[in-house]
């Protein structure tokens, strides 16, 4: 029997290898070090891994859904806030695009109604009917919905039952808008004033010559013009009467360009004023209207 040191070294290393393997295996079953190491490595690289899988997908959908709702609710709230602060129906209209709507309290709508030109208010709903509804105590809110061709107004009771509904078509709506804050344009843009545009100086001079009752007839709310900071340069008078009132357009010069503010005067008084401005007798044939300088824009 011969002894080979090389062979014994090989056997020893094999045994050692096997022992190490066994020790690793047993220690893994006892100490779970492979899982722990791998788990720790995974935890340390978590931030670099993709947000994938069902739960992340669901999270994204939830976030997207919440932001959609947030946008809807936010828009609606902002619209409501602007509508609540509105001082005229025109300001409410300016808030609304077609398809949008706002809810106002009955009291707020009554205030806006009172500020409407009398003819338009009458066309919308009779003040006596409004008084009756207010007196019954069931009218609590008003819903205004802008459509492509006008404005729907619903008077509602607390349970949202519609008590009355009416439509305001585009033409009076445009008047409301012009009246509230003016429109960025010149008088020539409104066909109703064509051929009846006068220099403001002349308009106010003739107005000053008229009697007090006539002046009140032409300008029932002069304080609206007094509140205008810019200079009034021209005045347009419509040829159409609506419910006994005629539209007057006041062109003002502002730093951003010309604007036209609309007011309404009683037809009989406005016609008298026109007759005087045009130098004809009231009820007589029309004389030539304006000098070329009068009709020129600012």
């Amino acid at each position, binding site marked *: 029997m011969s002894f080979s040191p090389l062979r014994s070294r090989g056997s020893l290393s094999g045994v050692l290898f096997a022992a190490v393997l066994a020790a690793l295996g047993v220690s893994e079953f006892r100490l779970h070090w492979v899982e722990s190491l791998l788990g720790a490595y995974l935890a340390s690289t978590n931030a670099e891994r993709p947000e994938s899988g069902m739960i992340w997908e669901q999270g994204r959908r939830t976030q997207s859904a919440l932001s959609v709702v947030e946008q*809807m609710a936010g828009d609606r709230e902002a619209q409501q806030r602007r509508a609540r602060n509105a001082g005229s129906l025109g300001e409410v209209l300016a808030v609304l695009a077609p398809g949008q709507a706002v809810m106002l309290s009955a009291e707020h709508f009554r205030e806006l109604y009172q500020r409407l030109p009398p003819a338009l208010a009458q066309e919308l709903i009779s003040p006596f009917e409004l008084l009756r509804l207010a007196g019954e105590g069931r009218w609590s809110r008003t819903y205004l919905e802008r459509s492509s061709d006008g404005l729907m107004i619903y008077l509602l009771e607390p349970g949202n039952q519609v008590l009355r509904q009416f439509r305001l078509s585009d033409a009076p709506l445009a008047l409301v808008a012009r009246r509230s804050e003016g429109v960025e344009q010149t008088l020539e843009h409104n066909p109703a004033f064509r051929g009846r545009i006068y220099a403001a100086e002349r308009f106010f001079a003739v107005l000053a010559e008229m009697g007090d009752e006539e002046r009140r007839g032409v300008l029932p709310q002069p304080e609206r013009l007094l509140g205008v900071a810019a200079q009034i340069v021209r005045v347009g008078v419509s040829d159409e009467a609506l419910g006994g009132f005629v539209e007057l357009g006041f062109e003002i010069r502002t730093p951003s360009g010309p604007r036209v503010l609309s007011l309404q005067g009683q037809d009989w008084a406005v016609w008298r004023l026109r007759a005087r401005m045009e130098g004809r007798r009231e009820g007589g044939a029309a004389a030539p209207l304006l000098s070329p300088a009068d009709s020129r824009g600012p």
Partner: protein
Amino acid sequence: MRRTLRLLLHLGLLLAGVVAAAGWVYVFLVLRDLPRVPEPLSRIIETPATEIYAASGERLLVLGGRELVPLHRISPHFLQAVIAVEDHRFWEHRGIDKLRLVKAFWVNLFGRGRLEGASTITQQLAKNLFFTFRRTFERKFREMLVALHIEARFGKSEILEAYVNQIAFGVGALGIEQAARSFFGKPASQLTLAEASLLAGLPKSPTRYNPYRSFERAKERQRTVLRRMVATGAITEAQAEEAFRTPLSLRPRSRETPASGGYFVDWVLKELEDRYGSDVVHHAGLKVFTTLDARMQACAEEAVAAGLARLDPLLKPPPAAEGESPPRVQAALVAVEVHSGAVRAMVGGRDYAESEFNRAVQNNRQPGSGFKPFVYYAAFEKAGLHPASVFVDQRVSIPIPGQPSWTPRNFSGEYEGPMILKRALAQSVNSIAAQLAQRVGAPAIIDAARRCGIKSPLTAVPSIALGTSGVSPLEMASAFATFASGGTRHEPFVVRRVEDSSGRVLEERLIGGRRTIDAAIAFQVVDMMRAVIREGTGRVILQLGFQAPAAGKTGTTDDHLDAWFTGFTPTLSASVWVGYDRAAPLRDVHGRGLTGGRAAAPLWAEFMKRATEDEPRREFPIPPDIRFVTVAPTTGEPPAPWGGRGMEVALRPGQASFLAPRGEDPTTVVPLGAGP
């Protein structure tokens, strides 16, 4: 030899090294695509719930949202039970139960078709959160890696908490809190050992072990859970035995689950999804306030259940299709508020759990004679006729260009001769309805139906007078409500208001109607439909004890395929349909066909009796230009003193002015001209 062995050993070691290296490469490749784990884990549980409420305040359904319930608010019995049955070494392993894995590998390899899983609770959590349920080796491997990550990052309690808050128990319950409330009507903290062990068995297969479907299977599973608890030392044998014997009182499936009002809720969800999209409805935590009246809904469900239970033994079921059981008769009921269009109750079938097809909305079945009120309205409006106009009930043949003539028959097969129109509607005389259709034309009838609210496609043929175009019960209830409201049409609706999770209003419904038909003519038709209940084909309504002022019309189609009753009080309009889903006649065991009066009207009467029992008695408002006159039902003349009972008819100004109004001297009257 020795050299060869050494070579083999080296080759083996080399191969093992290569395999190990390839394994590590594979691991790192897989690692790159592993999903990120959210921190904290509770973030994955908390999603806002969309809640749907009845008008009466009850919560009808909660969609999707969950709130994390901490472990200390969960019964320890449940935690012990779920650990015992799902992963008894949960507290010891680091995400993978290696012994169980080896055993499962062995069984799956040599177990002759047996499959054994070895997923730990952590692995199940990883699977539920990130992976699909497709079983592949790679998915399993990735799931194990994520489990290791979760174990390394989070504590055992956090993992267990996340797990029990997101597992599915069936019946729409996700998480132990929802499960405890759905099955036992109590919070998870109050679950007893018996209840906890039943619930702990469900996640393995929520459908198979659903106690509402198979209580025995659920009990067997409970026994397994209890045995595992004994084996793990969580409880003693005696405790397990006692828990198994403890009777379980499952919560009746009621308003919190879709079983009640399920059809209604489905329709609400469909409307919301059309408007907002599915993601917003299911994930944005909306609060939806509907029109449903929970008490009325319960009345409707009970009326339908009782009515079908009464019909089942009477009916001879149609033959079954091959390999299927005989079809069961179905019913639908829908009730609409007359002055708003709000849908107050809806039953779309016999059992929502059995069939989600909503017959109250989606069905398109012929209404038969139920369509006649529109015919009479059109005849009064277009042809100047009125309830006292006389027509002759006789065999008629109506020519149709290019087709054989249409010869409608009366239901009884007999003809009675002359009669006034009020009597003709009360007795549902087909020959006279056909004559009216010929007189005014199908387009006029369709126009009347459309103005009342019928939206289904209607075919312009003379037979439309007998209801040959399909409609839904919702359309019928809503269209008849237009008569009841005196001619004002209200669109039916189910959603009153929608809010976001913080209570900001997203939309609210305005309740407004539009006059679409004449009030006085509408009243004349209503008055005629009152006669249907008082003395016509709907007499059963009175016989069953519904005494409030009401009007309605029965409907039965050819071959008895459909039975209808649609009727209303001054405040509530309801329509009932009874029939089979496939075209099969409603015949009793003697082979006789069932009519709307026999099959559908009793359900209507039962529902209306209970739905309106708390309401004060209200009469139909009479338009100011209506006057009542009593005439002989066969001649339209004042009834002779010796000649039987007269019939009161409602007339408009100018109609039969020679007839003295009620209470006046009728001596100067002349007979009405007969109709064609």
